[in-house]
């Protein structure tokens, strides 16, 4: 699977970057992540348990951050194992660019899936991923565009500190996991 996307978020570059690294904000915009641990510098392990209809699965996600350039870009490598549900692995490149008072976020995901995910979901995977990204960024845009108090309160945080290792990767971890779940739903 290869997918690119672009979102215009009505907030400044640094606000968006901080938002992407704020677990509380992310937590309000995404569902499903049960636990996360830092396994090393730029390395994380997440466990996502989900039950949808008759199928439940535990997804173990291993994530590595690379090429982190606050506040404009990073790369995330993910390796998600879902046991009987199959597996996924892939890379996401994320870039932020200022456009007037707004921020243009673009992403590029390359992933391949295996097992039941590939068997029953290959046709649906693009649409499912797109919908997840749309839903997330719609919610995220609302959060950081000034309507939500957290976004403005964070103004004084320096950029260096804003890059928190428990932050931005979460969305991709959950996205990979949720993709997997979406595929199972199709089964």
């Amino acid at each position: 699977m290869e997918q690119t996307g672009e979102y215009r978020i009505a907030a400044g570059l640094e606000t968006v970057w901080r938002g992407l690294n704020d677990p509380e904000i992310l937590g309000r915009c995404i569902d499903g992540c049960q636990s996360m641990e830092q396994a090393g510098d730029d390395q994380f392990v997440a466990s996502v348990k989900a039950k949808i209809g008759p199928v439940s699965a535990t997804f173990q996600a291993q994530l590595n951050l690379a090429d982190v350039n606050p506040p404009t870009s990073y790369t995330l490598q993910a390796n998600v194992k879902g046991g009987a549900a199959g597996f996924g692995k892939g890379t996401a490149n994320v870039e932020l660019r200022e456009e007037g008072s707004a921020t243009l976020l673009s992403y590029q995901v390359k992933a391949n899936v295996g097992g039941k995910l590939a068997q029953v979901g290959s046709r649906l995977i693009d649409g499912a991923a797109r919908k997840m990204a749309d839903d997330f960024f719609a919610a995220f845009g609302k959060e950081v565009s000034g309507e939500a108090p957290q976004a403005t309160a964070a103004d004084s945080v320096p950029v260096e500190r804003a890059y928190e290792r428990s932050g931005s990767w979460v969305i991709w971890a959950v996205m990979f996991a949720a993709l997997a779940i979406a595929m199972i739903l199709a089964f």
Partner: protein
Amino acid sequence: MSEAVVQTGIGASVKRKEDLRFITGTGRYTDDFNVAGQKYAVFLRSPYARARIEDIDVSEAANVRGVCTVLTGQQMAEDGLGDIPCGWLVKQKDGSDMVSAPHPPLAATLVNYVGEPYGLVIADTLAAARQGAEAVLTDFAELDAVVDPAEATGSEQIHEGVSDNLAFDWELGERAATEAALASAAHVTRIDLVNNRLIPNAMEPRAALGSYDPGSGEHTLYTTSQNPHLARLVLSAFVQVAPEHKLRIIAPDVGGGFGSKIFIYAEETAVIWAARRTGMTIKWTADRSEAFLADAHGRDHVTHAELGMNEAGEFVALKVSTTANLGAYLSTFGSSVPTYLYGTLLAGQYRTPNIYVEVQGVYTNTAPVDAYRGAGRPEATYVVERVVEQAARELGRDPAELRRFNMITPDQFPYDTPVALTYDTGDYQVSLDRALAMIDYDGFPARREAAAAAGKRRGLGLSCYIEACGLAPSQLAIQLGAGVGLYESGEIRVNPTGNVTVFTGSHSHGQGHETTFAQIVSDRLGIPFDDVEVVHGDTGRVEFGLGTYGSRSLAVGGSALMGAADKLIAKGTKIAAHMLEADPAAVDFTDGSFVVRDSNQALTFGEVAFAAYVPTNYPTELEPGFSEKAFYDPENFTYPAGTHIAEIEIDEATGVIELVDFVAVDDFGHIINPMIVAGQVHGGLAQGVGQALLEHGIYDEYGQLITGSYMDYCMPRADDLPDFRVDTTVTPCTHNPLGVKGCGEAGAIGSPAAIMNAVADALGEAVAMPATSEKIWRVLQNRRTA
């Protein structure tokens, strides 16, 4: 003969007995059988095409409520179970044996295709078993997979000891003579073909219910098998699950097989092994996803063929090189399908004097490939009929005329082909003529013109196929590498009240044996059709049998029943002669009665049967009882043949293909039940249409099956099919007592080439199967933009 028997005897379109229970929901399939306290199994399957199993953590699964135990390939290996063997040993070009990679029923250390089972979770409920399977954490180390059969020999080695991933390099025919004839041919037509991988998709998925009785030591396995005795033989002699006399295999109603239920599979083996190991009765029913992954697939050939002709257009030589994808392991008959069931059919209906075929059978990290309706013969027909059609176009000859010009003529039978077979009889021209008349061949140019005016490209394609059925003469089969003989058994037990129970070693999973075999026995013994009960599919009731595949049930199994009936009549004649105080030589059996010739003295079949069980006035030299059995071993294959013609229209704008007309004229020899035969032909044609236009099993570059559900694997539906027009011609088989040839596979064998030839005719160029509308649209669009 009584009127009742005429209406139900040989040649009558009797409605199928079994259909009443099938359509009223009272059939009993494996999953319908339940035992109090039974457990449910869910298999652990590899998500990788090739990987090493590093660790299996079952601790969490064991804690799932309702889970009884988790068993793995490691434990199976510890119990000393044998590998699943391949039943047909093919010799290579250099005379050496094929290289058969070990195939443990459950993988212990290495997995070699997506879906390969490596363990099973047993639980009180299916839901708990599923939950348990989802909680098993297996650590795999992924290895590079080999997926493309055309590149398999140069890729990483899959199995230890199998260099170049080559299971066998096989040949048949005279290479030097064929190459010389090609070199001096006036014209050579060359063609490259892919025979697309198919996934069987029987309506009922595979299932098993295994139990073990510690008191008697008996193992009982209900399962979806086309050949329960063969399964018992292999499971006892090779896999060593249980001794043969302590293992009963019951294949009750089975909802379609198409070959895919011939084979000895891991799951059924594991279920009966686990039943004994745990003392539990264990049920497993595949879901559709599992069927896609782990049923043996069909076809998957890559072929180059060259057909040489002289100035007159006579075929002088055919040379064929094929790479056959065998999948990750050699399935039960995986080696015979692309060799002896393929290469031997390359003469087709033609007199081609020089034929040479070589086949490389390669391992890949995909599901095993084995027999699927037609098994080798559709692939052979596709090669012959595509290259012949292309030759006709290159030479500017009428395709029907070029075929007729090269056909074996009726006076040439028995005809020895250059590829090991002797065709006993046939009249190919008569089927061709009938089919041409039915399709109105001469009217085609006008139909093509009318279609063009409506924005449609119309095409017509022929396929004159032959197949070898009635598998098989045992001595020949064993000489060619078969592990078993291919005879069949039949038994007729006459009950004291005169009705009969018939036991056949063949197996019905849609073919209608209960009707056809009852017709034969009723006709032969002159008793009412409803007085005949046919029993099959139970090693505990039927003495022995080799099952149903290769269109063999009637030709071989039906012939065995004829033998048993003959024995009954012979014994009945002696009993009747004694009772009527006549010379046995003067007693005839006609219309269900033993009649003293030129007299009015007679005894009915029922009276004789009663006398055999209540022997008051009875010959002292005869044993009481009235039951006979016979084994029948055919002396040759049977050779159904015919002509299929397809007419298609392509929508110029969208590329959508409509199969507007399809004619099939088949020679199946004598026909017992024309309605069942027509049904078999229709079903086979539907599968042929599926292969030609819709179906394609695809693995991605990592060996993931991306056509693993009905969203991506397109099965033919009713509106994809035309109103098939079928007819038959008859040259009776010369060597079986019924004169029958077999009709189960012809539809799937003949039709793909006819349809693809029609597509090539309409499009002006060939495309690969399946000819989807997307492929056709791309061809047309490229022309528009070029």
